[in-house]
């Protein structure tokens, strides 16, 4: 099963991310890659550099970032694991690093299953 995990920050400390955190994140990433479960990951530039295209009431509108929202999407990762709980465990490890190494940082990670061949299999 493939899961996409998106990470959003809800409270960003004034201090820059500590070097120890970056190192720990890198190590965890290596571990997940080495375990053969992380397929892809990347950080996202601030939404100030992005835009939003909306369809509402039959009209398209384009708005430049930043998006006025309480949370900002900052990264994504794709995991191939055998259960949702496994994806939850890897994600918990990731957030634990933030808790332990970057005082005041708060955020949330959404875990969503990517549809795969199992969703399109013919009925038995």
């Amino acid at each position, binding site marked *: 099963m493939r899961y996409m995990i998106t990470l959003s920050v809800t409270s960003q400390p004034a201090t820059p991310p500590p070097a120890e955190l970056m190192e720990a994140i890198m190590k965890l990433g290596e571990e997940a*890659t*080495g375990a*053969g479960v992380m397929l892809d990951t990347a950080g996202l530039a601030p939404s100030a550099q992005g835009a939003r295209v909306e369809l509402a009431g039959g009209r398209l509108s384009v708005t430049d970032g930043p998006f006025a929202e309480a949370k900002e999407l900052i990264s994504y990762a794709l995991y*191939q694991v055998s*259960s949702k709980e496994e994806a939850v465990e890897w994600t918990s490890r990731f957030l634990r690093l933030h808790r332990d190494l970057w005082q005041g940082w708060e955020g949330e990670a959404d875990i969503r299953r990517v549809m*795969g061949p199992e969703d399109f*299999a*013919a*009925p038995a």
Partner: protein
Amino acid sequence: MFGSVAVTIEDPRRVIEAVWRIESARVVAGLARMVGDIGLAEELAQDALVAALEQWPESGVPENPGAWLTLTAKHRAVDLLRRRTRYERKLREVGRDLEVRQETAEAELDDALDDHIGDDVLRLLFTACHPVLPVEGRLALTLRLLGGLTTQEIARAFLVPEPTVGQRISRAKRTLAEKRVPIELPPPAELPGRLSSVLEVVYLVFNEGYSATAGDDWARPSLCEEALRLGRVLAGLMPGEAEVHGLVALMEIQASRVRARTGPDGEPVLLGDQDRSLWDRLLIRRGLEALGRAEALGTLGPYGLQAAIAACHARARSTEETDWERMAALYRVLAHVAPSPVVELNRAVAVGMAYGPARGLEIVDGLGAERALRGYPQLPAVRGELLARLGRAAEARAEFERAAELTRNERERALFLTRAASTVDGAAGTGEG
């Protein structure tokens, strides 16, 4: 010693299963180094798992579940070794080791345990795939020890009764103990042969999953994912081995077609007829990257060559845009390093596409006497395709009907019969699964 994490919506049992899947290979591998016996190491790890199943639903899931399992298992190992006087020497080593570790701050615990873990896992994999074991024993032991699969899961995936798998595993462990197979990496002189045994096991697991058909329990196709995962782990542990990257590349590229190779009613779809928009671009990209790593390390071996062939398909937007000349050349090399009638038959397909059906037919007709291909439905199927392209419709139809007679797969039979019915003068097609 650990704070609890608030897991309200999660079933602790399923959390334990997940942690076990992530950690078990490393736990067992570390224990195997300590006690020098795979069966014993697994028993100790199982004890820790049972302890988790008993305690976590009450106490909550520990803050660092992997470290908890490892530490619990090591405590049991120490207890066991203490009881066994003949392990006196090891007891001292382990006891000292453990004292140091207990003093280590919790945050550093992982690092301390991780030091040799890569090597431990590699040793465990080479031991589980030791040639002293029969192939089915290697498969079951590898999935059990390296994949953390239960006996029941392995049985479901391989369509065999659970006791059979249990016997294969216990017999394999006993053989390793009786033959005193050391839990070590092979000496350099033996490495190529031993590595190819490991790669063979991984690819057999993959193919078992790949051969699953519609209606099969999902445990079967998920073997593809497990084989890919094992391959990626191995590539991380042996980054200098071209064939490891070659095998990973081959599996990633083959897995990329899973969605396209079955039609809406579960019928097989041949490669040439697949909707390429259904191919998994991420797996293709990963496969091509792995192939690049294999190529950068030197000459491609059999897996690398098959991956390079698969890559010709993966890179092409259609059958017509496929680099058939390159593929025919790659098959020629493959036929040289790993000769087999099946490779030769596939070469005929590529040659037929690159240089015309008559040239392909020459190769196929040269194979007519091959004993290994007797009863192999792909032989008449390929011959049929080549004849159809030559406009020899009646002969082609007879070949497709022959292929339909030979196959034991109902879906495939239907496919060949459809092909026979649609073969009229001038109709063309490609034939590769």
